[in-house]
C-alpha cells in the first residue's frame, strides 16, 4: 500500500510539471506586456528596462520559467502587480474559504443524492424512479449561477431574506459563517447531486444483480441488511469515483458562486486578477487550484483501491 502511494506520488511529478509549463506558456501568450500595463505607454526606455530586469523579462523564456518555478518550489509565488503583496499568503488565506465551501457543498449533495439514488434503484421503473431521474437531470441541467440568481430572487421577494453581508471566517463566528455559506453551498451541492444520484442508482442496480446478494437474501437476511450492509458498501466505489470527478467541477463552480455571494475565496481572487490584468496572481492561483484538483483525484484513487480489495497495488 505504502509503495503504491509513493509510486502514485512520483507519477504526479510529470503531470504537475506539465501543468506548470502549460500555465506559464499560456500566460506568456497574453498580448501586450506586463511592463506597459504597469507603466503605461509613455514610460521612458530606462524605466522600462529597469522594470523588465526586476521581473526577469530580459532573460530567455526557459530561464524565466526556471526562475518562476524555483520560486514556487521554495514557497515564493511572486508578488501581485496591484498590491505588491506576496501571492502565496493571499492564496492560502483564501483557500480556507474555498475548501470549506467545496466540502460543505459535497456534503449537501451526498445527503440529497445517495438516499434518493438508493430509493430510485429499489423502486426501479416506477413513478418514483422516473421522478428521481427527472430530478437528477434537472440537477445536472440547472447552471449554478442561474439557480443562485433565481434563489436570491425568490428569497428576497417572497421572504424578504437577504444573505448577510461582510464575510466572517469560521473561526471568528461559526454560526454567522455557516449562515453565509449555507446558500452558496446549497446551490453548488444541488448541481453536484444530480450526477451522484444517477451513479448511486445505477451502481446499486448493478450490485443487486450479483450472485452474492442472492445468496444473502436466500439466507434470509432482511432487505435492510441486504441494502445497507452489503449492496451499499459495494456500490460505494463507482459513487466515490464520480464524487472525485465532481470535486473539480465544484472547485470551478466556486469561481462563479463566490462572485455572486461576494465571498473572498480563491475563485473570486482569480476573477478579480483576470479583470485587473494582474497576471502573476492568475498564474499562481490557477496553478494552485489545478494542483489541489490533481491531489484530490489522487486521494480518491487511493481510497478507491483501499475500499476495493480486488484492485491490486502494483
Amino acid at each position, binding site marked *: 500500500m505504502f509503495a503504491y502511494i509513493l509510486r502514485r506520488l512520483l507519477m504526479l511529478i510529470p503531470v504537475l510539471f506539465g501543468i506548470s509549463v502549460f500555465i506559464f506558456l499560456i500566460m506568456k501568450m497574453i498580448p501586450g506586456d506586463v511592463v506597459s500595463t504597469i507603466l503605461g505607454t509613455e514610460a521612458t526606455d530606462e524605466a522600462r528596462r529597469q522594470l523588465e530586469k526586476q521581473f526577469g523579462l530580459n532573460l530567455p523564456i526557459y530561464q524565466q520559467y526556471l526562475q518562476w518555478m524555483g520560486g514556487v518550489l521554495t514557497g515564493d509565488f511572486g508578488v501581485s502587480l496591484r498590491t505588491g503583496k506576496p501571492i502565496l499568503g493571499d492564496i492560502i488565506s483564501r483557500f480556507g474559504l474555498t475548501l470549506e465551501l467545496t466540502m460543505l457543498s459535497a456534503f449537501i449533495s451526498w445527503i440529497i443524492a445517495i438516499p434518493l439514488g438508493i430509493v430510485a434503484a429499489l423502486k426501479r421503473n416506477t413513478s418514483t424512479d422516473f421522478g428521481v431521474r427527472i430530478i437528477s437531470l434537472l440537477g445536472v441541467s440547472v447552471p449554478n449561477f442561474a439557480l443562485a*440568481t433565481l434563489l436570491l430572487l425568490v428569497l428576497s421577494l417572497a421572504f424578504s431574506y437577504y444573505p448577510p453581508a461582510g464575510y466572517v471566517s469560521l473561526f471568528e463566528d461559526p454560526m454567522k459563517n455557516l449562515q453565509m455559506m449555507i446558500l452558496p453551498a446549497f446551490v453548488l451541492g444541488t448541481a453536484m447531486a444530480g450526477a451522484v444520484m444517477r451513479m448511486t442508482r445505477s451502481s446499486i442496480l448493478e450490485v443487486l444483480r450479483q450472485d452474492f446478494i442472492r445468496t444473502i437474501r436466500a439466507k434470509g437476511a432482511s432487505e435492510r441488511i441486504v441494502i445497507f450492509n452489503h449492496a451499499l458498501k459495494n456500490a460505494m466505489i463507482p459513487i466515490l469515483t464520480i464524487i472525485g470527478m465532481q470535486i473539480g467541477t465544484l472547485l470551478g463552480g466556486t469561481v462563479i458562486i463566490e462572485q455572486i455571494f461576494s465571498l473572498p475565496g480563491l475563485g473570486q481572487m482569480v476573477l478579480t486578477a483576470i479583470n485587473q490584468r494582474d497576471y502573476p496572481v492568475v498564474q499562481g492561483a490557477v496553478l494552485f*487550484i489545478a494542483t489541489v484538483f*490533481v491531489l484530490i483525484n489522487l486521494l480518491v484513487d487511493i481510497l478507491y483501491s483501499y475500499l476495493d480489495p480486488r484492485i491490486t497495488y502494483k
Partner: protein
Amino acid sequence: MKEIMARLKKDKVGIVGVIGVGLVLLLGLFGPWLSPHDSTEMYKEHMLEGPSATYWFGTDEFGRDIFSRVVEGARVSLYVGLISVGIGASLGFVFGLIAGFFQNWVDNLIMRIMDILFAFPDILLALTIVAVLGPNLENTMIAIGIVFTPVFTRTVRAAVIAVKEMEFIISAKAIGVKTHKVIFRHVSPNVLAPFIVQSTLALSGAILTEAALSFLGLGIQPPNPSWGAMLNESRQYMEIAPWIAIFPALFIIVTIFCFNLLGDSLRDLLDPKLK
C-alpha cells in the same frame, strides 16, 4: 439506424428531448423573423416594463425588448455551442484516432497533454484561455473547444482500441489494406456511436460554459445578447423587475435540460451493453 429510430420512438423521455431541442433549433434559426423588435434597440420610454402585448417578456433597464433578446440569445448559444463542440470534437477525433490506433509514443504524448488539460476544472480553463486571448465571441468558442478536446480524445481512443482488435480490422490489415485506409474506412465509422453521444452531451456543456463565461463578463460582449450576460445584468434590477432575470434563466435551464434528455436517451440507445 432504423432500429435506433424505432427504439427512440418508444422512449418518451427521449422524445421530449428531441422536441425541446428541435424547438430551440427553430428559435435559433428563425429567431430574427419571430422577434417583434430589434434585440439592441432601446425604447427609452419603456424601461423596466413588465410583460405586455407589445413586449411579451417585458423590457430591461435600457428599454430593450427581452423576448427579442432571449430569441437572439438562443441564436448566440447554439452558434457558440455548435462551433465550439465542432472544434473540440474534430481535434478530439483526430487525436483519439491517432492515439488509439498506434498506441506508441505518439499516443503517450497526446494522452499526457490531455491529462494536463484534464487537470483543470472546465470553467477555470476556459476562463484562463479567454483571459489570455481577450474576451469576444471567437475566443469564447476557441476556449470552449479546447476545454472539450480531452473528453473527445479519450472517448474516441477507447472506442478505437476496442474496435481495432476485432477480426474484420485484423483481416483488412492481413490482406494489405494501407494504414490510413484502415483508419478512415474501417475503424472510424465504428467509433461513431460513442462519438455522437459525446457530442450531444458536450453541446449542453458548451452552451452552459458559454453562459457561465458571459455571466462573468468574459464571454459575449454587450450590447450583443447572451443568456448568461443578460442574467448577470438582471441581478441589479431583479427585485423591481423579476422578469428580466426569470426569462433568460428559464431559457438556459430548459435548453440544457432538453439537450441532456436527448444525450441521455441516445446514450441508452447506442450503448450496446444496455441492449
